[in-house]
């Protein structure tokens, strides 16, 4: 193992240049993730993973290849780059080739927003998990399952045109699910980039309270309802929109946003942006996988689709500039932000005539990515609202609709927003409560 990631990048790029590539990028990430998982109020496993991974991009004569190796000793890297180069030369030329920028950039790690305290969190994870479990228990969650995770990553880049730099990130998250009688369940999250903003007790309280309220849940009648989506539920759908806004997905025909640039795809109250860097964000870097500076990109502004997310290749193909969203192959969002509204949660509930509140969901699957038709399965706290009042817990329901119709029928958005990242939301998302009209709810026919 080479001690310094900078030396690893230098070795990869210099080897590639000696072989005669036109473009090369070496990106090394070193990560440490510590996790405590629990179920039935008891520890299930502790985890600690430490990894160094080298990602390489090579381009020559309109041919492109990418690679990742977790085998970063000196001789292995040399052999790996040689193998890559041989493979590269065997490929057909592609029509879409964008050279790396000639101008070299140099990046420094962000000082703001990086909490060193998260690096040191270890045995305290069990205590934080215990705090969440106890809070859930006090509020009605008889037994809880979940995971608390502290992670830090350092990334370092070097390109053949001399761009170099380093950045780092840290986050701490808790996902807790509590159960009461009759398998009633509730869900809570706490996601923070700083230890001081991490609140396991509040997450446990929410999980416990929702579990308690769901004890007498019943199945609803199928039909169209107003649906108030919690930040957890809304961010699951917003994360998908983020993926669909990738120019790669659009080009492949696996996005409902094909041919929609400049067109209305959501209600005027809905705006969505991607941020490479943002205070409080759980992810992101100052540079992307091609060494381009990351930035803020408005995706949907006041209901109108304003930008796709680009890397150098997709940008060149469509006559745009890179938005600094390059991933291994496809552009991807870093941190999503839904613009805040002006309603309070209470005002939103009071405005509902016949509606459903959803606090968590899973298993969102599409009939057709091109049309955006999907269904998703609510779980944990779900409540019937009649004339502005919560009257009943609901179970056994499914949302069956389309992304464009849902976000075009958004009526109210809350002032308050929360960072969400968990099993069902890959891209950290700062998300409000979202109230939508006329959402189709189904249930098993029998």
């Amino acid at each position, binding site marked *: *193992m080479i001690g310094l990631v900078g030396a690893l990048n230098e070795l990869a790029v210099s080897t590639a240049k000696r072989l005669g590539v036109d473009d090369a990028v070496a990106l090394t990430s070193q990560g440490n*993730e510590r996790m*405590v*998982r629990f179920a039935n*109020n*008891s*520890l*299930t*496993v*502790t*985890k*600690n993973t*430490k990894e*160094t991974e080298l990602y390489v991009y090579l381009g020559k004569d309109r041919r*492109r*290849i*990418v*690679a990742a190796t*977790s*085998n970063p*000793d000196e001789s292995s890297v040399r052999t*790996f780059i040689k193998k890559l180069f041989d*493979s590269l030369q065997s*490929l*057909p030329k*592609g029509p879409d080739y964008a050279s790396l920028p000639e101008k070299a950039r140099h990046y420094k790690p962000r000082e703001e927003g990086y909490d060193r305290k998260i690096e040191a969190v270890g*045995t305290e*994870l069990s205590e934080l998990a215990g705090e969440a*479990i106890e809070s859930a228990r006090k509020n009605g969650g008889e*037994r809880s*399952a*979940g*995971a608390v995770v502290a992670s830090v990553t350092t990334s370092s880049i070097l390109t053949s045109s001399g761009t170099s730099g380093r950045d780092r990130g840290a986050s701490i998250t808790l*996902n807790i*699910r509590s159960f009461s009688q009759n*398998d009633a369940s509730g869900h809570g999250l706490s996601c923070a980039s700083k230890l001081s903003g991490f609140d396991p007790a509040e997450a446990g309280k929410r999980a416990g309270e929702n579990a308690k309220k769901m004890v007498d849940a019943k199945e609803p009648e199928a039909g169209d309802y107003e649906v108030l989506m919690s930040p957890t539920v809304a961010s699951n759908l917003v994360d998908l929109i983020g993926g669909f806004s990738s120019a*790669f997905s659009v*080009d*492949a025909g*696996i996005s409902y946003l094909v041919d929609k640039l400049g067109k209305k795809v959501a209600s005027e109250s809905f705006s969505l942006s991607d941020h490479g860097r943002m205070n409080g964000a759980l992810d992101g870097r100052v540079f992307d996988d091609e060494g381009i500076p990351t930035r803020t990109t408005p995706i949907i502004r006041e209901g109108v689709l304003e930008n796709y997310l680009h890397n150098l290749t997709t940008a060149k193909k469509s006559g745009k500039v890179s938005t600094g969203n390059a991933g*291994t*192959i496809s552009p991807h969002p870093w941190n999503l932000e839904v613009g805040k509204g002006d309603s309070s949660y209470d005002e939103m509930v009071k405005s509902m005539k016949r509606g459903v509140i959803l606090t968590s969901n*899973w298993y969102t699957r*599409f*009939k*057709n*990515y*091109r049309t955006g*038709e*999907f*269904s*998703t*399965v609510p*779980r944990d706290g779900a409540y019937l609202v009649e004339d502005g009042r919560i009257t009943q817990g609901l179970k*056994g329901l*499914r949302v069956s609709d389309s992304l464009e119709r849902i976000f075009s029928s958004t009526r109210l958005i809350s002032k308050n927003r929360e960072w969400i990242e968990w*099993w069902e939301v890959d891209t950290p998302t700062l998300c409000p409560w979202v109230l939508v009209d006329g959402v189709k709810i*189904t249930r098993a*026919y*029998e």
Partner: protein
Amino acid sequence: MKLEELKDLADYAIGQARTAGASYAEARIHGASGNESLLKNGEPEPAVLVESFGIGVRVLAKGALGFSATNSLDRRSVKQLTIGTVKMAKSAGVLLKKPLAFDASKPVKKKWRAEEKQKIEGGDVKWLGSLLREIDGRLTSEEVGVKLPGRFLTAEASLEEKYYVNSDGARVESRVPRVHFFGILTALENGETAQRMIQQGESGGLEVVERLDLVKRVEREAKTLGEVLRKATKPPEGTIDVVLSPELSGIAAHESVGHPQEADRILGREGAQAGESYLKRDSLGLKIGSTEANVSDDPNLPNSNGFSPVDDEGVEGKKRRLIQDGYIREFLQNRSTAAELEVTSNGASRSVAFNREPIIRMSNTFVEPGEYTLEELLKEVKLGVYFASFTEWNIDDKRLNQRYVGLEAYLVEGGELKGLVKAPVLEITTPKLWGSVKARSRKMEFEAATCGKGDPMQGIPVWTGGPDTLLSGIKLGSR
């Protein structure tokens, strides 16, 4: 890096863990390498090479389970990590209500490999790219009969190698090559689109491509999309019969039988992520289906995507009869759930990479074959729908309320297949589905799938499959 060179490191890790106070320790040197080609609308995307190699160590210390992993494969790093794992597990004991134990499964000493006729190493990115271009050539030919403006195709040749040892005496070395194809086809006609995701894969060498008849298979799927767009009409309503193809039988077996019979879910371990189960620890013997409901999981099927004759706890993988004649017969077990439930592990514990803990996974889950032909099943149907393929699907986290939306689906009238119907929806509970099984065909087919579970997520290769399955008296909807 060669597996052979690192065997000593696995033994060293176990020794260090035991010295640090672990009552049990295991170490897995786990490597995966792969070549992948991607073709988007006929144009090559960057080829991909991946190699992942590292060590995963798992310990039991004072009844607490700890797992750690690193790709720093020197003794100093492994010692530091292993001792840290034992320390972290011990310190987390404050959260432990009941000490964890492993069952007394017989430790396996074995070297095994999946059958491989044409060496997987021949599957370089040039070879894979040629395969994709051949498929794409068919997709853009006039014979397909429909425009496919969206054609995203990937092909991968991969190799997974492991060396596993534990302090109970297991010592297992394995080699599994795999070939995997994935594609999303988007057909367009008169402003309407239809989309099909195709996933095919097996363990084996490059001969898998021929065995799957991959080129013709993808071409057939494209032609069907055109037919669906041109001809599909509204499906019948009300209570009718439904015939599930092997593809539908397989996904139903996986989602509503395999998953709820994973013992870790039943015991609550996955509660905050993949969920729990409608079944409880005392549900063995529960009647859940008709006498025709027979579902199994078998890690020993030759060439299968989930081929795993020995699991990642060093236990022999046995065929699991999940539902037999309508009764819940057996759960999928690892060594800790087996100890908790006072049974013996049936070898269902697998991990996808060095940095993932082994957890309970399905391997190849399927409806057992029956005695009839598809034609004989259809003859039983006065009015019904034959689901040949599906698109959108999902299920709740207790595995009781599931939905499958048909893509290629046909009206069945008077015992005969008629025209295509558009997006029929089977939204049904698990007991109703398996309680409605009336008969099964003899034909067995399997589909490749990647099953997601765990935290961090582990997507693991499996097969889903079965025969044609006749369900009687089903309420059908449409999208």
